[in-house]
């Protein structure tokens, strides 16, 4: 059995974070909240960057026990064709959205790399910032995507507990724990500018997973010094398919995790999606979270056809409109920011180190 890499198991680096996350921690939740709020305000100001997901396809080749789109579910499958993508993006733009996250399932013939690349090309014409949450790719594929205007890759390890990972990912390419673990590094190697990491809270011991996630981020930061990084806190919600998460993460523990990550990673973007309720998201505004999704649909498409009654990958708990959501942000004295990127900065990140060209230097005697 292949051993876990040292960087994932070295607990010296996570002592401070572990102390904050421990259930019998000496830091009160209120004290952590105050510190997290102060850091967030100083570093990110009174702003919240907004994005929205667009599910391109729900075809999938993997059998994740917890997912509504797993390949054994009876969910009707389809994918958006180029003209539909155009229509969806146009509908999203009408809502003010200019930062889009494109999603697919694991790699299939119906939604393969070429399909994804073409979709990114279309989105990059319409949107100011395009990121992708899809299947693990090769370095060359990531480089190609970066060249088409993809700036960010979101890829969750789901759980860093290998035994649980292998039990939950029953078949398909996602079964490969190490392939998944090495994906963010491949994306950065390929010139993707930022990676979004996370664990699916509820699948395994959440504190153990949070510590591994932190080590993963630190490892990537040391290896790819130009990397932008963000952390999401997706919490298991009732799924299409009826999976019950074995480890419940309550509101208090989730809050503790968000505050502790803000304190441990003062410069990192922290993301909270519409999986969480309006009240929870409003409460977290200004306390640590700096990026939120808005008016999300987790069905394939859905922006151009609001009457779509199809079931999504998971249920949305904050279903407010962009307008309602922005009004709530403003009430908390936070500015919603729709465009926080400039396409002039698109293109593969230059990770190379300049070398002396042969023949250009004189020997020194």
């Amino acid at each position, binding site marked *: 059995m292949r051993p876990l890499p040292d960087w994932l198991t070295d607990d010296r680096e996570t002592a401070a974070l572990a102390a904050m996350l421990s259930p019998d921690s000496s830091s009160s939740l209120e004290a952590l909240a105050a510190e997290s709020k102060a850091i967030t*305000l*100083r*570093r*990110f*100001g*009174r*702003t919240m960057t907004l994005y929205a997901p667009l599910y391109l396809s729900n075809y999938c080749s993997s059998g994740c026990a917890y997912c509504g789109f797993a390949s054994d579910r009876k969910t009707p499958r389809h994918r958006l064709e180029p003209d539909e993508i155009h229509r969806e993006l146009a509908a999203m*733009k009408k809502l*003010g959205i*200019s930062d889009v996250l494109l999603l697919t399932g694991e790699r299939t013939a119906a939604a393969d790399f070429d399909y994804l690349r073409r979709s990114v090309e279309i989105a990059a014409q319409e949107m*100011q910032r395009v990121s992708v949450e899809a299947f693990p790719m090769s370095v060359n594929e990531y480089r190609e995507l970066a060249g088409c205007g993809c700036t960010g890759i979101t890829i969750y390890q789901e759980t860093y507990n290998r035994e649980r990972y292998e039990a939950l990912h029953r078949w398909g390419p996602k079964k490969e724990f190490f392939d998944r673990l090495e994906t963010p590094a491949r994306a950065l190697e390929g010139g993707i*500018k*930022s990676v979004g990491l996370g664990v699916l809270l509820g699948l395994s011991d959440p504190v153990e997973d949070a510590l591994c996630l932190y080590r993963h981020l630190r490892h990537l*930061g040391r290896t790819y*010094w*130009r*990397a*932008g*990084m963000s952390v999401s806190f997706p919490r298991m919600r009732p799924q299409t398919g009826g999976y019950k998460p074995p480890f419940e993460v309550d509101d208090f523990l989730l809050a503790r995790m968000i505050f502790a990550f803000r304190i441990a990673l003062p*410069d*990192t973007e922290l993301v909270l999606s519409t999986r969480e309720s309006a009240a929870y998201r409003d409460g977290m505004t200004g306390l640590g979270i700096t990026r939120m999704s808005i008016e999300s649909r987790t069905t394939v498409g859905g922006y151009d056809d609001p009457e779509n009654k199809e079931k999504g990958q998971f249920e949305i708990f904050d279903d407010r409109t962009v307008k309602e959501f922005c009004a709530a942000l*403003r009430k908390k*004295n*936070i*500015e*919603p*920011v*729709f*465009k*926080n*990127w*400039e396409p*002039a*900065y698109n*293109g593969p*990140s*230059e990770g190379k180190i300049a070398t002396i060209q042969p023949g250009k230097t004189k020997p020194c005697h």
Partner: protein
Amino acid sequence: MDFLQLGSYTFSSRLILGTGKFSNATVMLEAVRASGAQLVTVALRRFNREQPEDDLLGPLSAIEGITLMPNTSGASTAAEAVRAAHIARELSGSPFIKVEIHPNPQHLMPDPIETYEAARILAKEGFLVMPYITADPVLAKRLEEVGCASVMPLGSAIGSGQGVATAAMIDIIIRESGIPVIVDAGLRSPSEAAHAMEMGCGAVLVNSAVAVAGNPPEMAEAFAEAVAAGRKAFHAGLMPKSGSAIATSPLTAFLGAKE
């Protein structure tokens, strides 16, 4: 009158304001007005032509007496910054460009190599280049050589509020520089801005300290007063600082004494 000279432009205010991190555009505009700033920086990534409510360029352009200085925040290479500068000039009509290249989006420290390269290209193209740099006296001179309108060394990390932690290096930069030295980033309080001005800085740039203050317009005004006071003090000439007490019985009294 004591003016700040940047290229062919003169400014009576020596406070430059950043426009990010505010809770809304109205408060930001109030702070700009209250600061009396005549030069204001705005990130190209916050230009939004498709959605006026999300756009910072439009409302800032509408203020009279303000010169805009677009910045390339978000760029991680010289090539990206040059591209951004071209777009920014086309959209804003301003000849100023604040070259801000931070390849690591976590700590936002400026890349000296890419910054030098972008500044060299843009100065040649006729931009008034204002490079954001670490407080490096050699880099500052190299940037002056390629024709920058100023250098903007950081007081401390962006948004850190640690004040002029690089004072010793900034002192050397000021002593050696033939162009205005503008402390950019890290200032938390008006007294720190006054200190930078007393040291001989040509101006200071402030953003977070105003944007996240309890009352941004009031804080902007406080910074304006501190900057003016600091400049006046520099002009008046501070009394020399002495590190040690002077002995009442002089140690050198024996010198020149008659036998």
